[in-house]
């Protein structure tokens, strides 16, 4: 059976200074700071890719052979600042159908439709989201 965790590409872990900077940058852009359990994930790998599943970290990563730049979380969210849906929320990742969004007010992780932002599922902790996506 295919398991997404078998192909999860990781990066170097984030440093405390980088994390502090990014939390400040998120606040300055009127976004929610990253929750603790997502920061624990970044402490193991500063972002991650598995197939179409992407989780963003504090730094962008340039893939020389594939001619693309994997974005960092602040620059990625800046594309959606015009959408009022992101009030008190931050997009932490995406796949080919949905966004993965942290709702700072309800303290939950949401899976939202990528076309309409309509929430589809909610998870209390990041581990539950990873289990659902089969990358844990």
């Amino acid at each position, binding site marked *: 059976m295919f398991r*997404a965790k078998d192909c999860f590409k990781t990066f170097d872990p984030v440093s405390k200074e980088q994390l502090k900077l990014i939390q400040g940058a998120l606040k300055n852009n009127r976004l929610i700071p990253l929750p603790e359990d997502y920061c624990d994930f970044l402490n193991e790998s500063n972002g991650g890719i598995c*197939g179409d599943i992407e989780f963003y970290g504090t730094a962008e990563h340039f893939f020389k052979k594939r*001619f*693309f730049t994997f974005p960092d979380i602040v620059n990625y969210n800046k594309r959606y600042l015009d*959408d009022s849906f992101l009030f008190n929320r931050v997009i932490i990742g995406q796949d*080919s159908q*949905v966004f993965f969004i942290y709702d700072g007010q309800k303290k939950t992780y949401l*899976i939202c439709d990528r076309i309409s932002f309509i929430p*589809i599922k909610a998870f209390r902790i990041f581990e539950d989201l990873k289990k659902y996506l089969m990358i844990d």
Partner: protein
Amino acid sequence: MSTLSFAFWQNEMARMGLPEMPLKDAQKTSENPVFCEPSTYHTLVHAFLKKVGFDHKDMQDLWRISLTREGIIQIREGKLPENLDVIFKVPLDYGGEANMENMLLIQTHPFVDILFKFMREQCKRYHQSEGEKSALYGYKKPPKLFVPDLNRRVFVPAMLGWTSPAGNGATDRMTQAGISIASEGRDV
């Protein structure tokens, strides 16, 4: 010109950077988003990629999008390399089915981002035209959505005349270099 007309949205698609992307309309079949569960999706994608990896025409398209030999091997094993997505051409809540005929292999950054932005913009305009000011629970979905009308399995932007972000009508040098290297069969 009505904001919901085909010509308007064809122009919007061109403005966003995909001027020759053919479009068709799809009728809404569900009010709530229809989501393909991860286990089903991964099984479908695994089979779809194996089909693409061993098809001659699809292989030529994979070279055209600058995929390396390692990337093609991954595809033949049913795995997605980085920066590639398999999306449903017609969204599942607009009559699209969760099967291989409705699937498209396409580069995540920037093309999947552009396509979803295009579809989201239609929802946003419809949402605003219905008098809704807040989108805290998402956008209202229009009864009709313009979606890509492609019958290929792999999206090849250069063949469709994709322009560079500067809009000067030429593909950027990196894309050109990648395409020419890939077509020679060399690794980058």
